[in-house]
Protein backbone atom coordinates (compact mmCIF):
# COMPACT_ATOMS: atom_id res chain seq x y z
CA UNK A 1 0.00 0.00 0.00
CA UNK A 2 2.92 2.38 0.80
CA UNK A 3 4.22 1.92 -2.71
CA UNK A 4 0.81 2.58 -4.24
CA UNK A 5 0.38 5.72 -2.12
CA UNK A 6 3.71 7.14 -3.27
CA UNK A 7 2.92 6.19 -6.87
CA UNK A 8 -0.45 7.95 -6.65
CA UNK A 9 1.11 11.10 -5.20
CA UNK A 10 3.62 11.26 -8.04
CA UNK A 11 0.84 10.76 -10.58
CA UNK A 12 -1.34 13.44 -9.01
CA UNK A 13 1.57 15.87 -9.20
CA UNK A 14 2.35 14.95 -12.81
CA UNK A 15 -1.18 14.78 -14.21
CA UNK A 16 -2.31 17.98 -12.52
CA UNK A 17 0.94 19.80 -13.23
CA UNK A 18 1.52 20.75 -9.58
CA UNK A 19 4.95 22.19 -10.30
CA UNK A 20 6.01 23.21 -6.82
CA UNK A 21 4.60 20.24 -4.94
CA UNK A 22 6.66 17.24 -3.78
CA UNK A 23 5.16 13.85 -2.77
CA UNK A 24 6.20 14.50 0.83
CA UNK A 25 4.13 17.72 0.78
CA UNK A 26 0.90 15.74 0.34
CA UNK A 27 -0.35 14.17 3.56
CA UNK A 28 -2.06 10.81 3.11
CA UNK A 29 -5.18 11.90 4.94
CA UNK A 30 -5.37 15.55 3.92
CA UNK A 31 -8.37 16.69 1.80
CA UNK A 32 -7.42 17.04 -1.85
CA UNK A 33 -10.43 19.14 -2.92
CA UNK A 34 -11.81 22.39 -1.57
CA UNK A 35 -9.22 23.04 1.12
CA UNK A 36 -5.91 21.22 1.34
CA UNK A 37 -4.48 21.12 -2.17
CA UNK A 38 -7.48 23.09 -3.43
CA UNK A 39 -8.20 20.97 -6.48
CA UNK A 40 -11.43 21.43 -8.48
CA UNK A 41 -13.88 19.54 -10.67
CA UNK A 42 -11.59 19.60 -13.71
CA UNK A 43 -8.77 18.08 -11.69
CA UNK A 44 -11.21 15.36 -10.66
CA UNK A 45 -11.89 14.60 -14.32
CA UNK A 46 -8.18 14.40 -15.03
CA UNK A 47 -7.77 11.95 -12.17
CA UNK A 48 -10.62 9.85 -13.59
CA UNK A 49 -8.72 9.67 -16.90
CA UNK A 50 -5.54 8.78 -15.02
CA UNK A 51 -7.27 5.93 -13.17
CA UNK A 52 -8.43 4.46 -16.46
CA UNK A 53 -5.08 4.87 -18.17
CA UNK A 54 -2.89 3.54 -15.38
CA UNK A 55 -5.15 1.12 -13.49
CA UNK A 56 -7.83 0.17 -15.99
CA UNK A 57 -10.63 1.53 -13.78
CA UNK A 58 -13.53 3.14 -15.67
CA UNK A 59 -15.63 5.60 -13.67
CA UNK A 60 -18.90 6.41 -15.44
CA UNK A 61 -20.38 8.86 -12.96
CA UNK A 62 -18.30 12.01 -12.36
CA UNK A 63 -19.95 12.61 -8.97
CA UNK A 64 -18.48 9.33 -7.71
CA UNK A 65 -15.18 11.19 -7.69
CA UNK A 66 -16.18 13.09 -4.54
CA UNK A 67 -15.73 10.05 -2.31
CA UNK A 68 -12.92 8.36 -4.21
CA UNK A 69 -10.70 11.44 -4.33
CA UNK A 70 -11.31 12.62 -0.75
CA UNK A 71 -7.69 11.94 0.13
CA UNK A 72 -4.75 9.92 -1.10
CA UNK A 73 -5.74 7.20 1.37
CA UNK A 74 -9.26 6.84 -0.06
CA UNK A 75 -7.81 6.84 -3.58
CA UNK A 76 -5.35 4.10 -2.72
CA UNK A 77 -8.08 1.97 -1.14
CA UNK A 78 -10.29 2.37 -4.19
CA UNK A 79 -7.50 1.57 -6.65
CA UNK A 80 -6.44 -1.43 -4.62
CA UNK A 81 -9.99 -2.81 -4.73
CA UNK A 82 -10.79 -2.11 -8.36
CA UNK A 83 -7.62 -2.14 -10.41
CA UNK A 84 -7.50 -4.32 -13.48
CA UNK A 85 -3.94 -3.39 -14.46
Amino acid at each position, binding site marked *: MEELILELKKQIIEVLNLEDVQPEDIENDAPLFGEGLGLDSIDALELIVMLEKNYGIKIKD*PSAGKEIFKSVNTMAAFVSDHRTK
Partner: protein
Amino acid sequence: MEPIVITGIGVVSAIGIGKAATLESLRSQRTGIGPMRFLKTSHREFPVGEVKLSDDEMKQRLGITAEPTTRTALMGMLAMQEALEESNLLTSHPSYPIALVSGTTVGGMDKSEQYYLDYLDNDTRNDYIRTHDCGTTTQLMADHFGLFTMATSVSTACSSAANAIILGANLIRSRQTEMAVVGGAECITKFHLNGFNSLMILDHDQCRPFDADRAGLNLGEGAAWLVIETAESARRRGAKVIARLSGFGNACDAFHQTASSDDGEGAFLAMQKALKMADLQPQDINYVNAHGTGTPNNDASESQALLRLFGSTLPPISSTKGMTGHTTSASGSVEAAICLLALQHSLVPANYGWSRPMENGIKPVCEVLTDYPLQHVMCNSFGFGGNDSSMIFSRL
Protein backbone atom coordinates in the same frame (compact mmCIF):
# COMPACT_ATOMS: atom_id res chain seq x y z
CA MET B 1 -33.10 52.82 -27.80
CA GLU B 2 -33.75 53.65 -31.44
CA PRO B 3 -35.60 50.69 -32.94
CA ILE B 4 -33.57 47.91 -34.48
CA VAL B 5 -35.81 45.76 -36.61
CA ILE B 6 -35.52 42.28 -38.03
CA THR B 7 -36.33 41.92 -41.72
CA GLY B 8 -35.01 38.46 -42.48
CA ILE B 9 -34.53 35.13 -40.72
CA GLY B 10 -32.77 31.99 -41.91
CA VAL B 11 -32.38 28.79 -39.91
CA VAL B 12 -31.04 25.29 -40.41
CA SER B 13 -30.95 22.71 -37.62
CA ALA B 14 -31.90 19.17 -36.66
CA ILE B 15 -35.56 20.16 -36.66
CA GLY B 16 -35.62 21.48 -40.18
CA ILE B 17 -34.03 23.13 -43.14
CA GLY B 18 -35.62 26.55 -43.18
CA LYS B 19 -38.27 28.35 -41.15
CA ALA B 20 -41.31 26.48 -42.43
CA ALA B 21 -39.91 23.07 -41.51
CA THR B 22 -38.68 24.44 -38.17
CA LEU B 23 -42.10 25.86 -37.33
CA GLU B 24 -43.76 22.58 -38.24
CA SER B 25 -41.44 20.68 -35.89
CA LEU B 26 -42.15 23.16 -33.09
CA ARG B 27 -45.91 22.80 -33.60
CA SER B 28 -45.78 19.02 -33.59
CA GLN B 29 -43.15 18.84 -30.80
CA ARG B 30 -40.94 16.69 -32.96
CA THR B 31 -37.37 16.19 -31.81
CA GLY B 32 -34.51 16.16 -34.30
CA ILE B 33 -32.25 14.27 -31.90
CA GLY B 34 -31.44 10.69 -32.77
CA PRO B 35 -28.71 8.30 -33.83
CA MET B 36 -25.65 9.69 -35.60
CA ARG B 37 -25.72 9.59 -39.38
CA PHE B 38 -22.99 11.84 -40.69
CA LEU B 39 -20.25 12.31 -38.09
CA LYS B 40 -17.42 9.78 -38.34
CA THR B 41 -16.59 8.87 -34.76
CA SER B 42 -16.24 5.76 -32.63
CA HIS B 43 -18.65 7.28 -30.10
CA ARG B 44 -21.81 6.43 -31.98
CA GLU B 45 -23.59 5.80 -28.66
CA PHE B 46 -24.46 9.46 -28.20
CA PRO B 47 -27.75 10.81 -29.54
CA VAL B 48 -27.14 13.97 -31.56
CA GLY B 49 -29.13 16.63 -33.36
CA GLU B 50 -27.58 16.58 -36.82
CA VAL B 51 -28.69 18.71 -39.74
CA LYS B 52 -30.22 16.07 -42.00
CA LEU B 53 -28.03 16.82 -45.01
CA SER B 54 -24.60 15.57 -45.98
CA ASP B 55 -21.92 18.05 -47.03
CA ASP B 56 -22.44 17.04 -50.66
CA GLU B 57 -26.18 17.58 -50.42
CA MET B 58 -25.60 21.05 -49.00
CA LYS B 59 -23.11 21.88 -51.74
CA GLN B 60 -25.63 20.78 -54.34
CA ARG B 61 -28.34 23.03 -52.89
CA LEU B 62 -25.93 25.96 -52.86
CA GLY B 63 -24.55 25.29 -56.32
CA ILE B 64 -21.02 24.94 -54.97
CA THR B 65 -18.55 22.55 -56.54
CA ALA B 66 -15.22 24.00 -55.40
CA GLU B 67 -13.21 22.95 -52.40
CA PRO B 68 -11.97 23.75 -49.82
CA THR B 69 -15.10 24.29 -47.82
CA THR B 70 -16.23 23.29 -44.34
CA ARG B 71 -19.48 21.82 -43.03
CA THR B 72 -19.94 24.83 -40.76
CA ALA B 73 -19.60 27.25 -43.69
CA LEU B 74 -22.00 25.21 -45.84
CA MET B 75 -24.65 25.19 -43.11
CA GLY B 76 -24.08 28.88 -42.63
CA MET B 77 -24.56 29.61 -46.31
CA LEU B 78 -27.80 27.62 -46.50
CA ALA B 79 -29.31 29.52 -43.60
CA MET B 80 -27.95 32.85 -44.81
CA GLN B 81 -29.55 32.34 -48.21
CA GLU B 82 -32.97 32.08 -46.57
CA ALA B 83 -32.44 35.19 -44.44
CA LEU B 84 -31.17 37.28 -47.33
CA GLU B 85 -34.03 36.12 -49.55
CA GLU B 86 -36.66 37.06 -47.00
CA SER B 87 -35.04 40.47 -46.54
CA ASN B 88 -34.94 40.98 -50.30
CA LEU B 89 -31.16 41.29 -50.33
CA LEU B 90 -30.38 38.62 -52.90
CA THR B 91 -31.86 40.31 -55.92
CA SER B 92 -31.48 43.93 -54.97
CA HIS B 93 -29.12 45.06 -52.30
CA PRO B 94 -28.66 48.60 -51.16
CA SER B 95 -25.47 50.40 -52.00
CA TYR B 96 -24.84 51.26 -48.41
CA PRO B 97 -22.83 49.21 -45.93
CA ILE B 98 -23.89 45.78 -44.70
CA ALA B 99 -21.91 44.15 -41.90
CA LEU B 100 -21.59 40.43 -41.28
CA VAL B 101 -21.01 39.28 -37.73
CA SER B 102 -20.74 35.54 -37.36
CA GLY B 103 -20.40 33.38 -34.27
CA THR B 104 -18.43 30.17 -34.52
CA THR B 105 -15.89 28.30 -32.43
CA VAL B 106 -15.00 25.14 -34.32
CA GLY B 107 -14.43 26.88 -37.65
CA GLY B 108 -13.02 24.31 -40.03
CA MET B 109 -12.23 21.72 -37.36
CA ASP B 110 -14.35 19.14 -39.20
CA LYS B 111 -11.57 19.08 -41.80
CA SER B 112 -8.61 19.65 -39.45
CA GLU B 113 -9.55 16.66 -37.34
CA GLN B 114 -9.40 14.48 -40.44
CA TYR B 115 -6.26 16.03 -41.89
CA TYR B 116 -4.17 17.25 -38.93
CA LEU B 117 -1.54 14.52 -39.25
CA ASP B 118 -1.28 15.32 -42.97
CA TYR B 119 -0.84 19.01 -42.19
CA LEU B 120 2.17 18.01 -40.10
CA ASP B 121 3.52 15.35 -42.36
CA ASN B 122 2.99 16.14 -46.04
CA ASP B 123 1.56 18.56 -48.61
CA THR B 124 -1.54 16.63 -49.63
CA ARG B 125 -4.05 18.70 -47.62
CA ASN B 126 -2.50 22.16 -47.72
CA ASP B 127 -5.70 23.70 -49.09
CA TYR B 128 -7.45 22.96 -45.82
CA ILE B 129 -4.85 24.55 -43.59
CA ARG B 130 -6.32 27.96 -44.21
CA THR B 131 -9.85 26.80 -43.40
CA HIS B 132 -8.93 25.77 -39.86
CA ASP B 133 -9.63 29.06 -38.06
CA CYS B 134 -12.91 30.85 -37.32
CA GLY B 135 -12.29 33.87 -39.52
CA THR B 136 -11.98 31.81 -42.67
CA THR B 137 -15.40 30.22 -42.12
CA THR B 138 -16.90 33.70 -41.99
CA GLN B 139 -14.93 34.66 -45.08
CA LEU B 140 -16.18 31.63 -47.05
CA MET B 141 -19.77 32.64 -46.29
CA ALA B 142 -19.16 36.33 -47.00
CA ASP B 143 -17.49 35.56 -50.33
CA HIS B 144 -20.34 33.31 -51.42
CA PHE B 145 -22.79 36.21 -51.31
CA GLY B 146 -20.47 39.12 -52.07
CA LEU B 147 -22.64 41.61 -50.20
CA PHE B 148 -20.67 42.64 -47.19
CA THR B 149 -18.57 45.70 -46.50
CA MET B 150 -17.48 44.54 -43.10
CA ALA B 151 -17.07 41.04 -41.66
CA THR B 152 -15.92 39.67 -38.35
CA SER B 153 -16.22 36.56 -36.18
CA VAL B 154 -17.18 36.15 -32.54
CA SER B 155 -16.00 33.12 -30.63
CA THR B 156 -17.46 32.77 -27.16
CA ALA B 157 -18.43 29.10 -27.27
CA CYS B 158 -22.16 28.62 -26.66
CA SER B 159 -23.00 32.33 -26.64
CA SER B 160 -21.13 33.19 -29.87
CA ALA B 161 -24.15 33.83 -32.06
CA ALA B 162 -25.89 35.87 -29.36
CA ASN B 163 -22.79 38.02 -28.99
CA ALA B 164 -22.61 38.38 -32.76
CA ILE B 165 -26.16 39.74 -32.71
CA ILE B 166 -25.13 42.15 -29.94
CA LEU B 167 -22.13 43.52 -31.86
CA GLY B 168 -24.25 43.93 -34.99
CA ALA B 169 -26.84 45.84 -33.00
CA ASN B 170 -24.17 48.11 -31.50
CA LEU B 171 -22.70 48.81 -34.93
CA ILE B 172 -26.17 49.95 -35.99
CA ARG B 173 -26.78 51.98 -32.84
CA SER B 174 -23.49 53.80 -33.37
CA ARG B 175 -24.34 54.38 -37.05
CA GLN B 176 -21.29 52.57 -38.37
CA THR B 177 -23.69 50.56 -40.49
CA GLU B 178 -27.43 50.67 -41.15
CA MET B 179 -27.77 46.96 -41.72
CA ALA B 180 -26.14 43.80 -40.44
CA VAL B 181 -26.48 40.06 -40.96
CA VAL B 182 -25.84 38.50 -37.58
CA GLY B 183 -25.87 35.04 -36.07
CA GLY B 184 -23.73 31.96 -36.20
CA ALA B 185 -23.01 28.50 -37.48
CA GLU B 186 -21.47 25.35 -36.05
CA CYS B 187 -21.29 21.74 -37.17
CA ILE B 188 -20.67 18.79 -34.84
CA THR B 189 -17.06 17.71 -34.84
CA LYS B 190 -15.26 14.74 -33.35
CA PHE B 191 -13.14 17.31 -31.54
CA HIS B 192 -15.86 18.83 -29.44
CA LEU B 193 -17.93 15.66 -29.14
CA ASN B 194 -14.92 14.10 -27.48
CA GLY B 195 -14.19 17.30 -25.62
CA PHE B 196 -17.63 17.38 -24.04
CA ASN B 197 -17.37 13.67 -23.37
CA SER B 198 -14.08 14.17 -21.52
CA LEU B 199 -15.93 16.71 -19.36
CA MET B 200 -18.58 14.01 -18.79
CA ILE B 201 -21.50 16.28 -19.65
CA LEU B 202 -23.04 14.33 -22.53
CA ASP B 203 -26.23 12.37 -21.96
CA HIS B 204 -26.27 8.84 -23.38
CA ASP B 205 -30.02 9.25 -23.82
CA GLN B 206 -32.32 12.00 -25.10
CA CYS B 207 -31.54 15.08 -22.99
CA ARG B 208 -34.03 16.37 -20.44
CA PRO B 209 -33.57 20.08 -19.72
CA PHE B 210 -34.76 21.14 -16.26
CA ASP B 211 -35.77 17.58 -15.41
CA ALA B 212 -34.93 16.11 -12.00
CA ASP B 213 -33.12 13.19 -13.69
CA ARG B 214 -31.30 15.19 -16.36
CA ALA B 215 -27.87 13.75 -17.10
CA GLY B 216 -26.25 16.02 -19.64
CA LEU B 217 -26.60 17.52 -23.07
CA ASN B 218 -27.02 16.17 -26.59
CA LEU B 219 -24.85 17.92 -29.14
CA GLY B 220 -26.58 19.52 -32.10
CA GLU B 221 -25.49 21.54 -35.09
CA GLY B 222 -26.96 24.29 -37.20
CA ALA B 223 -26.88 27.85 -38.39
CA ALA B 224 -29.19 30.82 -38.15
CA TRP B 225 -29.04 34.45 -39.20
CA LEU B 226 -31.06 37.57 -38.62
CA VAL B 227 -31.03 40.54 -40.93
CA ILE B 228 -31.20 43.55 -38.61
CA GLU B 229 -31.41 47.19 -39.61
CA THR B 230 -32.69 50.58 -38.57
CA ALA B 231 -36.43 51.12 -38.94
CA GLU B 232 -35.56 53.93 -41.35
CA SER B 233 -33.51 51.63 -43.59
CA ALA B 234 -36.30 49.05 -43.68
CA ARG B 235 -38.84 51.74 -44.55
CA ARG B 236 -36.63 53.12 -47.31
CA ARG B 237 -36.16 49.69 -48.90
CA GLY B 238 -39.75 48.61 -48.41
CA ALA B 239 -38.54 45.61 -46.43
CA LYS B 240 -41.08 43.65 -44.41
CA VAL B 241 -40.45 44.14 -40.69
CA ILE B 242 -40.89 40.98 -38.61
CA ALA B 243 -40.14 42.17 -35.07
CA ARG B 244 -37.85 44.38 -33.01
CA LEU B 245 -34.66 43.61 -31.12
CA SER B 246 -35.63 45.68 -28.12
CA GLY B 247 -32.86 44.87 -25.69
CA PHE B 248 -29.79 42.79 -24.99
CA GLY B 249 -27.20 42.26 -22.30
CA ASN B 250 -23.84 40.57 -21.88
CA ALA B 251 -22.25 39.83 -18.51
CA CYS B 252 -19.60 37.46 -17.22
CA ASP B 253 -20.26 34.87 -14.53
CA ALA B 254 -16.53 35.04 -13.67
CA PHE B 255 -16.74 31.77 -11.75
CA HIS B 256 -15.20 28.84 -13.66
CA GLN B 257 -14.24 27.90 -17.22
CA THR B 258 -16.77 25.09 -17.58
CA ALA B 259 -19.20 25.40 -14.69
CA SER B 260 -21.75 28.09 -13.84
CA SER B 261 -22.03 29.65 -10.39
CA ASP B 262 -24.65 28.39 -7.94
CA ASP B 263 -26.55 31.66 -7.95
CA GLY B 264 -26.27 32.19 -11.72
CA GLU B 265 -24.87 35.71 -11.27
CA GLY B 266 -23.65 36.17 -14.85
CA ALA B 267 -26.95 34.97 -16.27
CA PHE B 268 -28.91 37.16 -13.89
CA LEU B 269 -26.88 40.26 -14.78
CA ALA B 270 -27.19 39.62 -18.52
CA MET B 271 -30.98 39.30 -18.31
CA GLN B 272 -31.19 42.36 -16.10
CA LYS B 273 -29.16 44.42 -18.59
CA ALA B 274 -31.42 43.29 -21.44
CA LEU B 275 -34.54 44.33 -19.53
CA LYS B 276 -33.02 47.71 -18.68
CA MET B 277 -32.11 48.41 -22.29
CA ALA B 278 -35.59 47.39 -23.44
CA ASP B 279 -37.08 49.56 -20.69
CA LEU B 280 -39.14 46.59 -19.51
CA GLN B 281 -39.95 44.97 -16.20
CA PRO B 282 -39.62 41.20 -15.62
CA GLN B 283 -43.42 40.85 -15.67
CA ASP B 284 -43.49 42.23 -19.24
CA ILE B 285 -41.74 39.11 -20.56
CA ASN B 286 -44.25 36.59 -21.93
CA TYR B 287 -41.86 33.73 -22.75
CA VAL B 288 -38.26 32.82 -22.01
CA ASN B 289 -36.33 30.52 -24.31
CA ALA B 290 -33.85 29.22 -21.77
CA HIS B 291 -30.31 28.10 -22.45
CA GLY B 292 -31.40 24.87 -20.74
CA THR B 293 -28.75 22.42 -21.92
CA GLY B 294 -29.83 19.53 -19.72
CA THR B 295 -26.62 19.44 -17.70
CA PRO B 296 -27.11 19.22 -13.93
CA ASN B 297 -25.02 22.35 -13.51
CA ASN B 298 -26.47 24.69 -16.13
CA ASP B 299 -30.09 24.00 -15.39
CA ALA B 300 -29.59 24.47 -11.64
CA SER B 301 -27.64 27.68 -12.11
CA GLU B 302 -30.00 29.07 -14.73
CA SER B 303 -33.02 28.21 -12.56
CA GLN B 304 -31.55 30.29 -9.76
CA ALA B 305 -30.93 33.20 -12.08
CA LEU B 306 -34.49 33.01 -13.44
CA LEU B 307 -36.01 32.76 -9.97
CA ARG B 308 -33.94 35.71 -8.80
CA LEU B 309 -35.05 37.80 -11.75
CA PHE B 310 -38.71 36.87 -12.04
CA GLY B 311 -39.44 36.06 -8.41
CA SER B 312 -42.61 34.08 -7.81
CA THR B 313 -44.29 35.02 -11.09
CA LEU B 314 -42.30 33.15 -13.72
CA PRO B 315 -43.39 33.50 -17.35
CA PRO B 316 -43.65 30.36 -19.52
CA ILE B 317 -40.12 29.02 -19.91
CA SER B 318 -38.81 26.28 -22.15
CA SER B 319 -35.57 25.02 -23.55
CA THR B 320 -35.77 23.89 -27.15
CA LYS B 321 -32.49 21.98 -26.92
CA GLY B 322 -34.48 18.80 -26.37
CA MET B 323 -35.48 19.12 -30.01
CA THR B 324 -32.50 20.79 -31.70
CA GLY B 325 -29.77 19.53 -29.43
CA HIS B 326 -27.17 22.01 -28.22
CA THR B 327 -26.07 23.82 -31.37
CA THR B 328 -23.18 25.38 -29.41
CA SER B 329 -21.90 28.53 -31.16
CA ALA B 330 -25.05 28.76 -33.29
CA SER B 331 -27.47 28.30 -30.41
CA GLY B 332 -27.92 32.03 -29.75
CA SER B 333 -29.22 32.63 -33.27
CA VAL B 334 -30.98 29.27 -33.81
CA GLU B 335 -32.95 29.98 -30.66
CA ALA B 336 -33.43 33.63 -31.59
CA ALA B 337 -35.00 32.37 -34.83
CA ILE B 338 -37.25 30.06 -32.79
CA CYS B 339 -38.21 33.00 -30.55
CA LEU B 340 -39.09 35.09 -33.59
CA LEU B 341 -41.20 32.27 -35.04
CA ALA B 342 -42.89 32.04 -31.64
CA LEU B 343 -43.65 35.79 -31.69
CA GLN B 344 -44.92 35.71 -35.26
CA HIS B 345 -47.12 32.65 -34.79
CA SER B 346 -48.27 33.09 -31.17
CA LEU B 347 -46.72 29.83 -30.10
CA VAL B 348 -44.76 28.77 -27.02
CA PRO B 349 -42.42 25.85 -27.85
CA ALA B 350 -42.37 22.85 -25.56
CA ASN B 351 -39.47 21.80 -23.35
CA TYR B 352 -39.17 18.40 -24.99
CA GLY B 353 -37.81 15.58 -22.81
CA TRP B 354 -39.08 16.87 -19.48
CA SER B 355 -41.12 14.75 -17.05
CA ARG B 356 -40.12 15.37 -13.41
CA PRO B 357 -39.67 18.73 -11.67
CA MET B 358 -36.19 19.39 -10.32
CA GLU B 359 -35.64 20.51 -6.75
CA ASN B 360 -35.24 24.29 -6.50
CA GLY B 361 -35.65 24.53 -10.23
CA ILE B 362 -38.06 26.08 -12.69
CA LYS B 363 -40.90 24.04 -14.10
CA PRO B 364 -40.87 24.45 -17.87
CA VAL B 365 -43.70 24.40 -20.40
CA CYS B 366 -43.91 20.77 -21.42
CA GLU B 367 -46.64 20.91 -24.09
CA VAL B 368 -46.56 23.40 -26.93
CA LEU B 369 -48.94 26.32 -26.41
CA THR B 370 -50.67 27.59 -29.54
CA ASP B 371 -52.83 30.69 -30.04
CA TYR B 372 -50.76 32.21 -27.23
CA PRO B 373 -50.12 35.85 -28.12
CA LEU B 374 -46.67 37.06 -27.19
CA GLN B 375 -45.47 40.64 -26.93
CA HIS B 376 -41.94 40.32 -25.50
CA VAL B 377 -39.79 37.21 -25.66
CA MET B 378 -36.43 36.67 -23.94
CA CYS B 379 -33.72 34.43 -25.42
CA ASN B 380 -30.80 33.25 -23.26
CA SER B 381 -27.39 31.97 -24.28
CA PHE B 382 -24.77 31.03 -21.73
CA GLY B 383 -21.32 29.92 -22.79
CA PHE B 384 -18.34 28.23 -21.23
CA GLY B 385 -16.16 30.70 -19.44
CA GLY B 386 -19.24 32.40 -18.05
CA ASN B 387 -19.92 34.33 -21.24
CA ASP B 388 -23.60 35.00 -20.61
CA SER B 389 -25.88 36.85 -23.00
CA SER B 390 -29.58 37.61 -23.16
CA MET B 391 -31.73 39.16 -25.90
CA ILE B 392 -35.30 40.46 -25.95
CA PHE B 393 -37.40 40.41 -29.11
CA SER B 394 -40.67 42.31 -29.25
CA ARG B 395 -43.67 42.68 -31.48
CA LEU B 396 -43.78 45.95 -33.32
